[in-house]
């Protein structure tokens, strides 16, 4: 493996981060040079220097091996999280080293969990940087660099293959360059549309941009302590709910729908299943809230239920209410949504609904094959037979994901968290949702967690974002031949 090539491409990713830091410094400058201006400018210069250095020494290469590709993608995520800490650490406030690492990882992995007790105390420049980390992380830090920097050339294919999960590559019947462009175009267009809609819904431009970036990345960072509850607006909640649900759909399908292609969101079996789960979960939670007399009317219950279902299933994590006060059935439904999550090929994290659908079909086929031992039964999605290797990978991933949550819960409870807090925090971080229940509920944060728990949760976030095996492979790179 050529380490210098890996370093070169990580440097390219750092250039993108430096550009966003400079943009945040620009926001700070426009806000009468707030206290985040010099931390952002300094961080940007340092990041630019580390990013440029390998580009001067290492010549570009067209050939990247799979092993190098893995190292570039995983290394880029980890280095981005480390560099993302710079503005937080330099600014100070509530950001200790662990807190800055937590916030940075939470942003880049689009988890949206926060350690901040007073978000509104942050200057605008730093708030924008916080949103930028989530927006860059939404499509993946390497994917971002692939589109913006044309110099990467033929290596794009290898890197995008590693960055995109195997499931996400379905519905993309184009060349790599086109796929990457489609992903970013859909992402940027939806962000712009959401920004305008939120502005029309009553937010100021800054809040509208920040919330659109965060919603489209399915991150859930807000500029307000009370999250979306601060705005107390039904219109804003509906706009965000629609944006979140859309961002949970495969980008290739959104593009196909916009361009009038045949394989659109209405024909996709996975999308139909995704909508069905959202509707079922919303109805169940609405009825649960209504029967428990949590809200005065069924309409208010429906509004809250739909918003939180969309927020949890798309792994965004926005909140308009303290879900800890909801009945156990509603909480359990939201935890189910947090584990299942949205479609592959979207910005959401978690298990992905595609895998759940495949698992259900495999289960059904297993029962059928026991009834008809000689029958050849294939598992199909949208009429296409799935190969056994893919089905095996899905099964292994589901088991690994559950083991990861179990291990996370075990560690959280070992360091003092109660069962509900420990379990929901592990689910929320592994699925990149953000808020959990108990002490880390929708109206709370992770500041009270012990240092070890915070570190454990950041590992879960990275494992969840890199779909477990990506990060694990890095530790076995020596044995990779």
């Amino acid at each position, binding site marked *: 493996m050529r380490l210098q090539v890996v370093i070169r491409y990580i440097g390219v990713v750092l250039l993108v981060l430096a550009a966003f830091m400079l943009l945040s410094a620009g926001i700070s400058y426009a806000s009468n040079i707030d206290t985040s201006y010099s931390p952002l400018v*300094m961080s940007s210069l340092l990041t630019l220097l*580390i990013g440029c*250095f*390998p580009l001067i*020494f*290492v*010549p570009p290469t067209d050939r990247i091996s799979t092993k190098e590709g893995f190292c570039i993608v995983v290394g880029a995520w980890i280095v981005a999280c480390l560099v993302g800490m710079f503005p937080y*650490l*330099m600014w*100070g406030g509530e950001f200790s080293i662990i807190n800055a690492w937590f916030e940075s990882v939470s942003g880049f992995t689009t988890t949206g969990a926060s350690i901040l007790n007073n978000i509104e105390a942050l200057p605008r420049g730093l708030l924008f940087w916080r949103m930028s980390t989530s927006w860059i992380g939404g499509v993946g830090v390497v994917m971002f660099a692939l589109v913006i920097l044309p110099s990467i050339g033929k290596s794009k294919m290898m890197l995008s293959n590693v960055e995109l999960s195997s499931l996400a590559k379905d519905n993309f019947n184009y060349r790599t360059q086109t796929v990457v462009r489609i992903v970013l175009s859909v992402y940027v267009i939806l962000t712009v549309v959401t920004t305008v809609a939120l502005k029309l819904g009553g937010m100021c431009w800054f809040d509208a941009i920040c919330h659109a970036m965060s919603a489209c990345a399915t991150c859930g960072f807000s500029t307000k302590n009370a999250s979306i509850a601060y705005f107390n607006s039904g219109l804003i909640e509906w706009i965000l709910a629609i944006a979140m649900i859309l961002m949970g759909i495969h980008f290739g399908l959104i593009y196909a729908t916009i361009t009038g292609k045949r394989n659109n969101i209405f024909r996709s079996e996975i999308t139909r299943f995704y909508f069905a789960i959202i509707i079922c979960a919303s109805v169940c939670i609405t009825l649960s809230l209504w029967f428990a007399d949590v809200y005065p009317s069924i309409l208010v219950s429906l509004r809250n239920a739909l918003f939180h279902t969309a927020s949890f299933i798309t792994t965004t994590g926005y909140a308009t209410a303290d879900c800890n006060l909801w009945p156990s059935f509603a909480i359990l439904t939201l935890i189910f949504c947090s584990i299942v999550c949205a479609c592959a090929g979207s910005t959401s994290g978690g298990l992905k609904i595609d895998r759940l659908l495949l698992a259900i079909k495999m289960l059904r086929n297993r029962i059928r094959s026991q009834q008809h031992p000689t029958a050849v039964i294939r598992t199909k999605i949208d009429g296409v037979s799935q190969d056994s290797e893919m089905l095996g990978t899905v099964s292994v991933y589901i088991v690994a994901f559950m083991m990861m949550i179990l291990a996370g819960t075990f560690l959280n409870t070992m360091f003092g968290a109660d069962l509900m807090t420990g379990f929901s925090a592990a689910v929320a971080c592994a699925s990149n949702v953000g808020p959990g229940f108990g002490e880390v509920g929708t109206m709370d944060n992770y500041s009270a967690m012990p240092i070890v728990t915070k570190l454990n949760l950041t590992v879960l976030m990275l494992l969840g974002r890199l779909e477990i095996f990506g990060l694990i492979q890095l530790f076995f790179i020596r044995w990779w031949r």
Partner: protein
Amino acid sequence: MTGIRKRVTIGFLSIVVLLFFSGLVSLFELNNMSRDIESILDSSRRSIELSESMLDAIRANDRAVVNYAVLRDSTYADSCRLSFEAFSAKVDQARRETSASASPLFDSLDMFARRLSGVVEELRASRAIENLLLLDSMSGGALSFDGRRWYDKNYLPVYNSTSNSVMRVMSLAQSTLSPRAERLSRNAYRSVTPVFISLLVMIAILLLFYYFIMIYTVNPIIKMNRSLGDWLRYKLPFNVKTECHDEMLELKEKIENVINSHKAQK
């Protein structure tokens, strides 16, 4: 990719820039810290000066009242008013120069100052003492004014309360400075964070520089040297692979040309 000379220069320049940057940031941060400490010391000094001047003014007023009311010296009639006005001016100045957070400390001082003002004003406006003194001299000392009693009963309690209030303001103003100093000492490490980060980046750059120099300059030279030695000694083929596209590649090609021409001459 540029030539070796340029790359080495850029590498060293980057380190120099980082060193300069770290130095600049540390200077800036230390300057900020020094400014903060200076401001705390200035506030403390100013607070002591203002308290002293308030105490001086109120003591001057006391002396004037003693001379006027107790010692019956009518030339001090104006001094009573003027010294109290000086005291009021000092209180106003202290309030203006103290931070907004310490402003509530002056409320009780204001109350006592108003009471003192009432006593002094009443004494001065009624000209009671002057009249009494005049009557006293006309009656040949038959009518006596007990200035000491008036001073002890009417003036002294208010004077004591006011001067105590000045002392309290002084000590409270000092105590408002201590959290600032405490915060500064607690967050001192924050000031060195940017320097610490730039030093970390510098270490990373140094390690990268070392690694790249080894990969693209040192290792090819060692390989070429070894391979050339093997060719000279055992006539083994000169076979060196380099990834670089700079002077190293040129050197390798030139060595190969020399070897090929040598073979051709034979």
